[in-house]
């Protein structure tokens, strides 16, 4: 087992800075998910950890051993990390068993031992009896399980996944998710898992690193990421948070403060060091908004769209006075709101996004 330290790592391709100053500490046995929009540098980060790309700046340490510095790059074949690719990357000219046993063969493990461990790895991914097949004759999910077995067979201390489920259909994805979680629990391997499926990341990971344009936007456990986003990007990226302008009226007290948002005073959650300021941002989740009756105290809004989603509807709306802001909430059956009319909503609570500080 080994922890992973990514220490102020930057990566430039020519003039283009794909990663800048990323620091992540992954504890021994931790499951870290990396989440972010397309092109934000997730794959690049993973390839640097595996040793396929050199770092431009910073260090990468695996299990206490420095693997990458700008001067020295331990080649991938010496790192003993496992990697599972999105496109499986199974060798078409080898059988399933040969694919899985490749690293053992390279390490000159004896034939009998090799067969035993291959069988073990295949049973671990529920593919016993598939050893003689060719990868071309397997389904997508089976291929990905072979790829997983191939990476597990040499018992690596660190396993990297690059969107391993992106090519699979929804049902298979759920099943594979369970298998990954199970595998992690059983072996306690340190895992770095890239995905752009938030639900997947939340379901699997101990902590999630959100990346944005080559920077680390936030590194936190799933619940904290959802409830206490560190900045606007994370707030809006995770579960489509609603960002609203607000003025902070009181200093933080027991984790809460009063803010004025859209003309109404609301008690919201906040960091303990908040103090009154103007032009702050509030992050609300759709369950934190509720529609109220016309006579009750609420923000007048215009309803733009109602999408029925079975048992409930997603309602998109804008405040009458601020038509540039987009809000959404969910209304359970019976759905009473219809597009084109005015209604009132109330903000029950929210999270005050901390003031942007200059990077340390």
């Amino acid at each position: 087992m080994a922890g992973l330290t990514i220490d102020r790592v930057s990566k430039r391709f020519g003039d283009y800075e794909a990663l800048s100053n990323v620091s992540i500490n992954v504890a021994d046995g931790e499951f870290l998910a990396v989440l972010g929009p397309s092109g934000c540098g997730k794959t690049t980060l993973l390839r640097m950890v595996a040793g396929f790309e050199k770092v431009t700046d910073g260090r990468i340490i695996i299990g206490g051993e420095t693997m990458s510095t700008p001067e020295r790059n331990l080649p991938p074949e010496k790192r003993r990390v496992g990697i599972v690719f999105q496109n499986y990357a199974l060798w078409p000219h080898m059988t399933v068993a040969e694919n899985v046993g490749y690293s053992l063969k390279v390490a000159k493990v004896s034939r009998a031992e090799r067969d035993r461990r291959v069988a073990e790895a295949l049973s671990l991914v529920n593919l016993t009896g598939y050893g003689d097949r060719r990868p071309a004759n397997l389904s997508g999910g089976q291929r990905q399980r072979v790829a997983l077995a191939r990476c597990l067979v040499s018992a690596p201390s660190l396993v990297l996944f690059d969107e391993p489920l992106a090519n699979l259909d929804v049902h298979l994805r759920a099943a594979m998710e369970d298998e990954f979680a199970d595998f992690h629990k059983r072996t306690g391997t340190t895992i770095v898992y890239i995905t752009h499926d938030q639900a997947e990341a939340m379901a699997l990971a101990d902590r999630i690193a959100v990346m944005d344009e080559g920077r680390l936007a936030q590194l936190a456990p799933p619940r904290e990421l959802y409830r206490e986003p560190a900045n606007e990007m994370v707030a809006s990226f995770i579960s489509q948070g609603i960002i609203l302008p607000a003025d902070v009226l009181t200093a933080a007290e027991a984790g809460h403060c009063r803010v004025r948002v859209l003309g109404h005073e609301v008690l919201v959650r906040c960091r303990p060091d908040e103090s009154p300021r103007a032009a702050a941002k509030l992050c609300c989740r759709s369950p934190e908004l509720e529609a109220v009756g016309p006579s009750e105290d609420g923000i007048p809004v215009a309803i733009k769209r109602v999408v029925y989603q079975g048992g409930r509807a997603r309602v998109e709306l804008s405040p009458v006075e601020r038509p540039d802001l987009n809000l959404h909430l969910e209304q359970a059956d019976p759905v009473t709101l219809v597009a084109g009319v005015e209604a009132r909503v109330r903000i029950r609570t929210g999270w005050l996004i901390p003031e942007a500080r200059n990077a340390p």
Partner: protein
Amino acid sequence: MAGSIGGVRNSSDLVIPASIKRGFPSEWVLTGLVVAIVVILSILPMLRLVQEIIAPGGRLSIAAVEAGLSNPATWTATWHSLVVGFGGTALAVLFGTAVPILISLTDVRGRSAFVLCFVTPLMIAPQVTALAWLQLFGPASPLLKLLGIAPPLGSRNPLYSAQGIILLLGVQYGPLVFLMVRAGLRKLPRELVEAGLAGGASRWTVLRTIVLPLMTPSIIGASALVFVSCVGNFGIPAFLGIPANYLVLPTLIYQRLAGAGPSALAEVAFLSVLIGVIAMVGIVAQDIISRRRDYRIATTSLPVEPFELGRYRVLVEAIMWLIICAILVLPMLGLFLTSLVPGYGIPLSFKTVTLSNYSFVLFDHAAAKSAFFNSSVLSVAAAVFAVLVAVPLGYFIAWRTSWWSKVLNLTVELPYALPGVVLAIAALLMFLKPIPLIDLRIYNTVWIILYAYLARFMVLALRPTVSGFHQIDRSLEEAAQVAGAGFVMRLRTIIFPMVAPVAVAGGLLIFMTAFSELTVSALLWASGSETIGVVIFSFEQGGDSSYAAAISTMTVALTLLLMLASNFLARHLPNGVLPWRD
């Protein structure tokens, strides 16, 4: 399904009255024309050849086969053909696999320049290659004389041997393997290599156990192609083998025909079918082997990250350019220097250097003069005709896929897949007597050569055109169809402009190949219809190497100029149409 699509098309034509008259029937006229051309150029000659073997004069007989099989010269030449065929293929594969691996998987610099230089021998006619190497190593070599290391005059040129033939075949066709393996390596997803590295394998192990096995389909395909080319090659064994009396099948055919004239036709027909059979066996064997190894790589991904050679990089680069020196620069230098000496064995110096060889072949020698004219007209005509036919033909093959368009494609491939000698003999047989009904006689004229060129090189324009069609969105044509344009109208205004760049590039390849072609014209020429290839060959056979070198130098210069000029076209072309563009 096809019927219903056809029905839709017809009814849309009905809506626009103007196109009923022109659009619909003209499509059938054009289709008929294209099919007729293919039949005349590909199917008839092959049928005629087969008829000569099994039923000469209209009656079934195996006398020709028996006579051929009982002749020991047949067996010697067959054995020699196999020796140089396998030898040349082995060398070309060795060479053509190692080099692309080196330049595709490592961080050597100057790749495009290297690829350009490495592929150039493929564009130079084999007899010119042969002449250049002969001039480089022979006792009269001006280069060796300049360096003072020439063997004494009268000593035997080491290239006059089976080994010499194998060496030059390897140099000539190595680039063919190179191109196919390089294309294969480009499609190799980097994850397949990286998964191996992550599994703890060294780069060397990954190369051995992953990259090379995955390249075997490319390598096997290329081997078959090269084998057929080696077995069918005439220029190299003609220059290197005939002086050593080392005859292969194509040179044996040439000698018989040159010695006995049309009376030897039955015998050479058998020999040419024999070459055809050997070539076919090669192709079929490749097909069987590659079917068992179908490692189709389906995923698309970035190509493999180059391996850093570190301090060995300079060494590897030096070796690469030494190879270029050996296979391209030195032979061409030898050729050029030979073209400047006034006579055989005279050392080159500032006193002796002369351009008289050039002026002689350009202005004084009647056959050479007419050869320049003939070859220019022949190659331009072949190129233009092929482009004009390739566009509608490519259209049927690429966009109207039905069983007969596939048959059409195979039919056009056949005369090129088979060695040129086979086609030449077939053409001879077809046109020895005047064409019936119209009583037209093209035997012993330049027209029979044109016919053979058209048949043989058509596919060089067709292949890029078909791949061009595959890259174009078919809805562009359908939009024109909906707008009411009939077939010929669409062909002229939409289809032709879209595929013109690829088709023209194909025409360029035909021009370059046909301009100094020898195999076909050596068997079909007559006084007055000499080609450049034939004249080079005659000069060399008559001992006038300097004249041969002068003409060859000019053809090489023209080839290089065209390759450079084609860069202007390159922007409009899909990858891989111009082999020398990396």
